[in-house]
């Protein structure tokens, strides 16, 4: 009997933001690593938690080119706490993020933050997979 199930990852981004090329490529890399990836665009951040619950994901990975970063992430973490999912779901944020914002994101419980020029998408894949 197979006990190890594939890791399920929700990769998501605001449907207002067109800067999606690298997050789509990340999706492909995660799939290549054998993970099950659900890629969505959300209108309102609340939808992300709903999708995460419905899809029973292990990881939420979100990408921001600045717009809505702090607002959406704060709300996401609040909702995960409300649902008691904070410890079950790993949250990874990537995008154009400053040092100060990174500190604040980690303080609010985000598991890892990827900033411009930090490494490669392969590092993100590793972080999702571990």
């Amino acid at each position, binding site marked *: 009997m197979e006990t190890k199930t594939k890791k399920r990852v929700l990769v998501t981004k605001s449907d207002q933001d067109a800067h999606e090329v690298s997050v789509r490529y990340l999706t492909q890399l995660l799939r290549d690593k054998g993970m099950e990836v659900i890629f969505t665009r959300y209108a309102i951040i609340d939808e992300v938690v709903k999708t995460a619950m419905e899809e029973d994901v292990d990881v939420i990975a979100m990408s921001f080119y600045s717009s809505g970063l702090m607002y959406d992430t704060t709300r996401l973490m609040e909702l995960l706490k409300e649902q008691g999912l904070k410890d079950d779901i790993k949250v990874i944020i990537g995008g154009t993020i*400053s040092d100060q914002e990174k500190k604040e994101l980690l303080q609010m419980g985000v598991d890892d933050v990827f900033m411009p*020029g930090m490494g490669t998408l392969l590092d993100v894949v590793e972080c999702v997979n571990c």
Partner: protein
Amino acid sequence: MFNDDTLKKKQLLDEQLMAAMAAMPAEAVPPPPPPATNWSGISLKHSYGPDDIKDMDFQDIGIPGNYPFTRGNYPFHYQVEPMLMNQGYGFATTEETRQRRQFLQDLGSRSQGGLVTAVMTLDLPTQRGLDPDHPAAAGKVGECGCSFSTLDDFSEYFDGLDITKLFTALLAIDNALPINALFAAYILDRRKENLADMWNLPCNLFHHQQFWDAAGYPPKTALKMSTELIKWHIDNMPLACPGAFDGYNLGESGAPPAMEVAFALAHTIAAVEECQKVGLDPNIVVAKYLGHPHVTQNFFEEVAKLRATRRLWAKTFAQRFGCTSPDALRHKIVIAQTAGTELTAQEIHNNIIRTTIMAMAGMMADLEGMWVVSYDEAISIPTEEAVKVCVRTYQILQEETDLPHVTDPLGGSYYVEWLTNQMEQEIVKIMNQMDELGGYLKCWESGWIRGQIEAEAAKRFTKIQTGESVKVGVNKYRVEEIAPPAEIYRRPIEIEQKAIERVKKYKENRDHEKVKAALENVKLAAIKVDKEWPSSGGVLMPALVEAARAGATAGEMSKVMQENLGYGYFSG
């Protein structure tokens, strides 16, 4: 192109070289390097000669200012008219954006005929048709652009400025009809000026689902919206250029240069055909299209692409649509944009070198104008320091170098003319492929176009990951483990509250019955556009202008349109 004597001399030189190499000891002759392949997939030789373009008709090269405009649209160009500085800007609210415009003006930034550019990026909620008080706008107001939704916003930005001397382009994406309706209402009612005096470049990007997977209007509807925008401006604002030949966003999304032009041209052909359905003359419509291509660091490939684009444009609209007006046949490339995808967060000042190379490619292709992006766009919307460098880039190229002295200085180069031909053939090949797959619209609706672009983006990323494509300071010669913390612009959070309060106040102080009736007319017009096209062509934009004059916000108008015309995911 060349007489037999010239070709024989070239052949003799080639033979002499081969003989000399054959006579050398084998170990002294390095193996010939493999030929390079450009990004569009064209295999290159090590050098070029007259034999590579011997079969060309000289008419296809011609002289600057003559059909088919391979060598540019004008006999004298930068000698008399510097490259237009059409860089966009916009953030926070109208007040902050207006300060940035003044900053650019003080630096000497100039556009068409000395007009001051007002190419304004609107924030993401505005681009999607959301007012700042909409729940989905929360946290995003004024961040990636300026928030615009009411006549008061127009007053804040434009009052006191001579709008007849502004080159105005409001980058409103899906909200373009309501935003331009508000602009019209502002001109008519608050300024009491003539629409016919305005240089407007309304954003015509309703087809963005070709390359983005963000929400949008369905393909057939998008073509109708484009037609509405074009028809209203032709009828009311004849100086405006409401057609956008957009390659930039295709390129940024991943399309290599030839693919970018193929998809952009296929879209323009479909959009012009749609305009014909509502009775517009292609001679007038085609002249209203301005070019917004992507320009990467592939210098010669970009120069050849841009020259091929102009030639293919002239031939396509002359032969397929019977256009005869020189204004239509000259493809005016007014806002070529340097590629954001080329910029890196690491060693960020290297981006100044990159954007300069891209700007030089634009000049060597004799473009009318460019949007040179700022070096910090890899990480943020531009700071003042970075946009200052952009303005100085144009000024140094134009006024300190010899680049502007001669029009189309690369014209006649064996390589450049050969590559221009090859790029043209590659573009045509991709367009023919779409015809074989059932036509452009089908390729768009099925998601085939976006699939092609995504596959190319993935290839590009893989090449960077593996080091096959070099990014200096990133995947080669890297000395920094992590790029130093960057100054990333964030608008103060109070900006959002200010914008929300402003729109709420605007909604309180108006004749509600009048607004309701005007929005009902927008609804009826939208239904007509949906159900009675093309006989209903031209009914929507006037209804929107009346709604804007009655006090409706952009978000209210967009909502009615989205509810009645469909809005969501329709490409694949």
